[in-house]
């Protein structure tokens, strides 16, 4: 089944068309990554799916048009992990993860035993149980990232939107987080729609890549189809070599000293 379908999605911000007629489908259980240079509209496209920015066109989730959904219904289908989550002061990791249950509760409602069980499970899956009573603002960057992922898991939405999930992490933690997301995707049958900065990692983890430039979809397909020297040079303005590393997919390496003048 198609989990997410974007139909001529366009977003105008400050008079500029940031996302321009984007059409894409993401199948259930699939991991699709949006790639593209800075300002290509990747994050804005994710925010549109999460209903955080007005748009033209349509977003369908499991066949339902999001325009006819309430905020709460939408939040039960998509969980967003922002690039830089706002970390509130003075609350514990568990209290933070508990916020993920919000779309399942009434306006004045409190959490039931099932809600607390979902939180405990998310804490276990992200290996945060020993941090549950720690204050969130005392955790390291990587641990906070896991806490935000745990909050998204507790939200129990079938679609996970990840905005640059590895932006502030070192290479080991990047790998750890992406492996974790991939195993959660497999074990929970989640659909992942993410933006990715690192092209090599994007090619390694996503099933398909969508390359955006100036808001338009310019290439889509497997890493082999999209991570080509020509496409990357044309849209990122970078000189790269793409190496086929057996067992690791395609490695995108910047090449020095060949950049054209003025580029």
């Amino acid at each position, binding site marked *: 089944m198609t989990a997410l379908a974007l139909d001529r999605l366009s977003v105008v911000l400050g008079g500029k068309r940031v996302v321009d007629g984007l059409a894409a489908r993401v199948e259930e259980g699939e991991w699709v990554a949006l790639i593209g240079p800075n300002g290509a509209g990747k994050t804005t496209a994710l925010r549109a799916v*999460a209903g*955080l920015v007005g748009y033209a066109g349509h977003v369908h989730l499991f066949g339902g048009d999001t325009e006819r959904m309430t905020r*709460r219904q*939408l*939040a039960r289908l998509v969980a967003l992990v*922002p690039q830089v989550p706002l970390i*509130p002061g*003075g*609350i514990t990791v568990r209290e933070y993860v508990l916020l993920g249950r919000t779309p399942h509760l009434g306006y004045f409602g409190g959490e039931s035993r099932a809600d607390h069980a979902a939180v405990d499970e998310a804490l276990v899956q992200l290996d945060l149980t020993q941090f549950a009573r720690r*204050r969130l603002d005392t955790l390291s960057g990587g641990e906070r990232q896991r806490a935000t992922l745990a909050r998204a898991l507790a939200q129990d939405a079938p679609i996970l939107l990840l905005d640059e999930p590895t932006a502030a992490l070192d290479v080991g933690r990047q790998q750890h987080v992406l492996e974790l997301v991939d195993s959660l995707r497999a074990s929970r049958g989640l659909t992942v729609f993410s933006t990715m900065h690192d092209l090599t990692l994007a090619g390694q983890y996503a099933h398909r890549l969508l390359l955006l430039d100036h808001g338009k979809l310019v290439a889509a397909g497997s890493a082999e189809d999209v991570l080509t020297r020509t496409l990357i040079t044309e849209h990122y303005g970078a000189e790269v070599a793409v190496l086929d590393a057996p067992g690791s997919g395609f490695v995108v390496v910047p090449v020095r000293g060949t950049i054209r003048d003025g580029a």
Partner: protein
Amino acid sequence: MRLATPRLWIPASVVFLAAALLTGALVGPVHLGALNVVHATFAHVFGLHSPLSGANDAILWQLRLPRVVLGALVGGTLAAAGAAYQGVFRNPLADPYLLGAAAGAGLGATLVASYAPGSGLSGDLLPISAFVGAGVAVVAAYTLGRSAGAAAGPAALVLAGVTIASFFTALQTFVQQQHVETVQEVYSWLLGRLATSGWREVGIIAPYAAAAWLILLGHRRLLDVLAVGDEEAAALGVNVGRVRLFVVVAATIATAAAVAVSGLIAFVGIIVPHTIRLVAGGSYRLLLPLSVVAGAGFLVFADVIARTVMSPAELPIGVVTAFFGAPFFAVVLHTSKRRA
């Protein structure tokens, strides 16, 4: 200082409030006795025979208890409203007067003192006028802040509050300059006071306080959600604008009612919630109920000090809350360096 079980803070704060209420009822020129006070209070509540003599019973029931109860209602309301404002605006310096409630109430009170001098500080006109002034100021600030667009978020509301407060303060100063003879009267009102005439003031504020406490406590979980920012809260399915409006309306009406009966008591709305944050954590699930209870106890104790240190004269309670509150807060701040 952080208790092993955060829930223990609730009974601890209730004990604190009970001690404050009892102290408030006992302290005064006439000795009543703790047992008699408790016994007589229950007797009045349940319509039984009071153990106290007629005169002493009147001191308790007509003088001390109304004042103690008023202090508890005002303190709980200001502390809860302060905590709620800090939550919806994600601004640690927010207090119940943030959106111009104080300036509006001040203008209302000054107008009454200047143009209806007969009614003075004890009449019915002053509370009504202060209440209306606070309401008008907050509605004006809210409308102005919203006109900047929802995208501008809480910062626009705070700026609008500052704008409206300056404007109303300017008006108030102007009116006061035209009627210099009212300066002392207005000034004493601005510093806050818990003077009561029987149960009248309690009757004025009680319905607003009760409604506001219920509404604010009902939003304690959503205030935690708002702590992750408007955008993430929206992604969690929350209608942020509506939550903010409900909380601001409830907190403002209660603040206006508190100001109407007790003037401008400063600092309670900041010091009480922040002390609780430092010792019991920042989650509003615990912070809001604790603010109500501890804020009530704090103001009752402050009033005991206000009416005893210079007895028979009284200090303005706003002076006491700041004079004793600030050093206490400094100690809490100092000893709380990162424990978790």
